[in-house]
């Protein structure tokens, strides 16, 4: 591989490592037409974001990935709002990373994680829409030889009232494309409170193809002469292949050959994926499992427990002297909580298709980070970046699994290189997907609190011991041994993931305890675990103080008005304090992540036999601006299912160094029958741009656990609930 590829990959990693970290990559966003765009057929490209067809169809370019979260629709709404086009005539075109690279990253960062799809694009896509509108108006003004200030525009129709003339975007687009674009800094964007397209519950632009089987996911790609590949990586992390006996599968239907992939995996390539999979199952493989094979859930638990008393910490915050305050307090509360490894289990398993020749590399990929896919393609193929292209497909679920790592792209390229010019589609089995995830990191948390005689919090001490995502994926993010990312949601700093409580004496500490298991961002990342710890423990403290759960929290939140407003909104909507049917109990939680504020109230009952039923959940969210309230509601509803699944069933036990839950029979997923009624309360403050896809998951589990506590009088301190005897 040339050095170009490696340097570029490093540059990309800067962008992808920001996922969940709130970092933004800076880049120039020009508004001139790109030098080498394969223009949208028949459309006049006004600028990089907008091309207009003669029939007035406005083609809006999208650089971020769509994995169900509605980002395509939301971004198109923002551009269309400033463009003043007819929403019924909007089409979208997705930019490839090769095209972005060839245009000097004109479309900016493509990575879609950390709930950044809209909030970190919104400014420049709106300016793109506004600039296009200004150029289209100027073209009409030039044509009519009237001052542009005399023109008005609505739904893509430009009018000059003075001369009673009108035209449409499609008619002036060709002339507009030749004009000098306005200075983006000079563009005045609309006040979001005056929005007509953005801010409204527009229907998604991408639904139709999901209803009749016509939408092509990457797993559905069909290419002439394509081969299928199935793969097995060493089930023990860090292990290798000792040997495999290819002779045992040669002659099986459709089989071409077995291919060793790096030093730990073997793939079988055949005329179809099923033939490859059947042969792989029959392939004798001997693994060199390595030292990881000695690890198990029990050894990992011991390792984490050690971190609870370790002297050296890896980041945190402190004010006052909490240990002293707690020691001297009238009443003390102590608890140790734990949360397990979790798999993403996207419905579409990992897959990718590649076609590699000596001087060209192409890949068809479901990716949250198309630029990372392109970099992986170049690095693994040895083909320079400029000769690589990734055709990105909307994902059948992402949840953080398909971001910067691109392990499956590295694999498919290694396989396809053995068949030059022939497209090879690699699909992981569900079992492979569950065995080789980048799991939500495991952790334990010890907390203690002190109350004075009046039940006021005088000291709070929090010690998290667990695995670090940065240590596995982005060690460069750990500075001087400090890794604040694992304390997401417990931060002192406002803006992104601030703890909404103050205590006169407070310490929050992280101790890194890494394992051999790969870890990564999982929808909501570390807010999930930290919200369980903080919100369930605060509940224990509130009950020890003999105070109402909401009132006790409110007293700690006086310096956090936005957190408080969302808590108040959820309490009001849920009818906090009002009577409930016999046997139904409420629990509450609030937390912050991805620059957004979330709160939830759960209503549950626990039967005499200990069976849990979650009846209703009310969630409130302040994400600043709301681009599409119906899609925000959809994300909140979905976050309940994702969060509840984790609470009820989620765990990835480790035995002999490997995962043992390898399909949905053991890694259970919540079904429709268990879905509570979800009500959402949007509390937009119009003061900032917060994320939507991830923020609310973290309040789901603690609100349910706190409701169980209310029902049974016993706190739940470990997950999943399927192992907890509730009564």
């Amino acid at each position, binding site marked *: 591989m040339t050095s170009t590829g490696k340097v570029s990959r490093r540059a990309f990693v800067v962008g992808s490592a920001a996922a969940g970290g709130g970092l933004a990559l800076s880049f120039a966003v020009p508004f001139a037409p790109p030098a080498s765009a394969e223009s949208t057929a028949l459309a006049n490209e006004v600028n990089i974001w907008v091309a207009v067809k003669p029939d007035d169809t406005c083609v809006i370019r999208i650089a971020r990935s769509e994995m169900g979260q509605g980002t395509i629709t939301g971004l198109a709404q923002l551009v269309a709002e400033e463009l003043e086009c007819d929403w019924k005539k909007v089409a979208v075109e997705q930019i490839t990373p090769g095209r972005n690279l060839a245009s000097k990253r004109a479309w900016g960062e493509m990575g879609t994680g950390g709930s950044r799809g809209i909030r970190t694009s919104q400014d420049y896509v709106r300016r793109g829409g506004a600039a296009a509108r200004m150029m289209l108006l100027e073209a009409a003004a030039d044509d009519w030889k009237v001052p542009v200030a005399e023109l008005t525009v609505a739904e893509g129709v430009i009018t000059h009232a003075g001369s009673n003339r009108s035209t449409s975007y499609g008619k002036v687009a060709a002339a507009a494309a030749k004009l000098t674009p306005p200075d983006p800094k000079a563009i005045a964007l609309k006040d979001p409170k005056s929005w007509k397209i953005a801010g409204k519950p527009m229907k998604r632009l991408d639904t139709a193809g999901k209803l009749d089987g016509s939408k092509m996911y990457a797993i559905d790609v069909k290419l002439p002469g394509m081969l299928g590949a199935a793969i097995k990586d060493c089930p023990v992390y860090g292990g290798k292949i000792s040997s495999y006996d290819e002779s045992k599968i040669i002659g099986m239907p459709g089989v071409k050959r077995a291919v060793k992939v790096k030093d730990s995996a073997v793939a079988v390539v055949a005329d179809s994926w099923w033939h490859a999979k059947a042969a792989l199952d029959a392939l004798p493989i001997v693994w060199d499992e390595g030292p990881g094979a000695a690890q198990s859930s029990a050894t990992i638990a011991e390792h984490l427990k050690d971190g609870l008393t370790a002297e050296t910490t890896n980041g945190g915050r402190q004010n006052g002297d909490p240990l002293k305050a707690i020691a001297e307090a009238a009443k003390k509360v102590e608890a140790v909580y734990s949360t397990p490894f979790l798999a993403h289990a996207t419905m579409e398993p990992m897959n990718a298709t590649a076609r590699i020749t000596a001087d060209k590399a192409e890949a068809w990929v479901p990716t949250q980070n198309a630029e990372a896919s392109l970099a992986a393609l170049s690095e693994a193929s040895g083909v320079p970046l400029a000769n690589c292209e990734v055709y990105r497909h909307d*994902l059948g679920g992402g949840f953080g699994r398909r971001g910067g790592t691109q392990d499956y792209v590295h694999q498919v390229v290694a396989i396809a290189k053995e068949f030059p010019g022939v497209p090879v589609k690699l699909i992981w089995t569900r079992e492979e997907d569950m065995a080789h995830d980048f799991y939500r990191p495991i952790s334990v948390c010890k907390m203690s609190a002190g109350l004075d005689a009046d039940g006021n919090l005088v000291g709070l001490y929090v010690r998290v011991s667990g695995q670090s995502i940065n240590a596995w994926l982005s060690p460069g993010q750990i500075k001087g041994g400090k890794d604040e990312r694992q304390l997401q949601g417990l931060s002192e700093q406002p803006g992104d993931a601030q703890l909404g409580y103050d205590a006169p004496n407070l310490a929050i500490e992280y101790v890194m305890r890494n394992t051999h298991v790969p870890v990564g961002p999982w929808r909501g990342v570390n807010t999930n675990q930290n919200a369980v710890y903080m919100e369930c423990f605060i509940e224990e403290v509130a009950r020890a103080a003999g105070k109402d759960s909401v009132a006790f929290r409110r007293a700690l939140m006086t310096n956090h008005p936005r957190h408080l407003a969302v808590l108040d909104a959820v309490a009001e909507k849920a009818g906090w304090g009002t009577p409930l049917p016999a046997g139904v109990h409420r629990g509450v939680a609030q937390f912050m992540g991805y620059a957004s504020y979330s709160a939830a109230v759960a209503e549950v009952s626990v039967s005499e036999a200990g069976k849990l039923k979650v009846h209703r959940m009310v969630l409130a969210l302040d994400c600043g601006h709301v681009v599409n309230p119906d899609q925000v509601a959809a994300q909140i509803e979905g976050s309940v299912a994702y969060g509840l699944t984790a609470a009820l069933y989620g765990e990835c036990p480790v035995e002999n160094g490997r995962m043992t839950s390898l399909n949905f029979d053991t890694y259970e997923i919540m079904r429709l029958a268990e879905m509570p009624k979800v009500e959402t309360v949007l509390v937009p403050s119009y003061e900032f741009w917060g994320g939507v896809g991830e923020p609310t998951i973290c309040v789901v589990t603690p609100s349910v656990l706190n409701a169980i506590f209310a029902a049974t009088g016993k706190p739940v301190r470990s997950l999943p609930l399927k192992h907890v005897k509730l009564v």
Partner: protein
Amino acid sequence: MAKLNVNGKVREVQGEPDMPLLWVIREQVGLTGTKYGCGVAQCGACSVHINGEVQRSCSIRLGDVKPSDKIVTIEGLSRNGSHPVQKAWLAIDVPQCGYCQSGQIMAAAALLRKTPKPTDRDIDEAMTNICRCGTYQRIRAAVHMAAGMGTGSGSVAPAQRRRA
């Protein structure tokens, strides 16, 4: 060589008797709307209708399908997305990523064919497919809406089928 009746069309397919119907549909027939999710009949992404019954095609062997069995995939459910379930799914914007929705729609269509006015309990029992995006609340609402359209008739008659 085996004969399969898929979406009203008889097709010749090549496959060993133990090849799952899912992979025959996807790789031999070339209809990719039916999805692979688990391979063990847990998730329902591969749901198709066989003689009007919803079935998980990943766990049905080609050798167990008769040439006379009428298989309907998502592509054959209706012409132009006109099945009440598809219309309700569109009206409520049910899908997020969409990957599981072919199976969800096939399950819902089969439910409504048998139970044109399902209760919540009927929906709980029939709609057991996994959705990781968590669209369950909208699925429930859309099934009720489709039932309200009054034509929970399942798959369309062969004469109407054109797609695929």
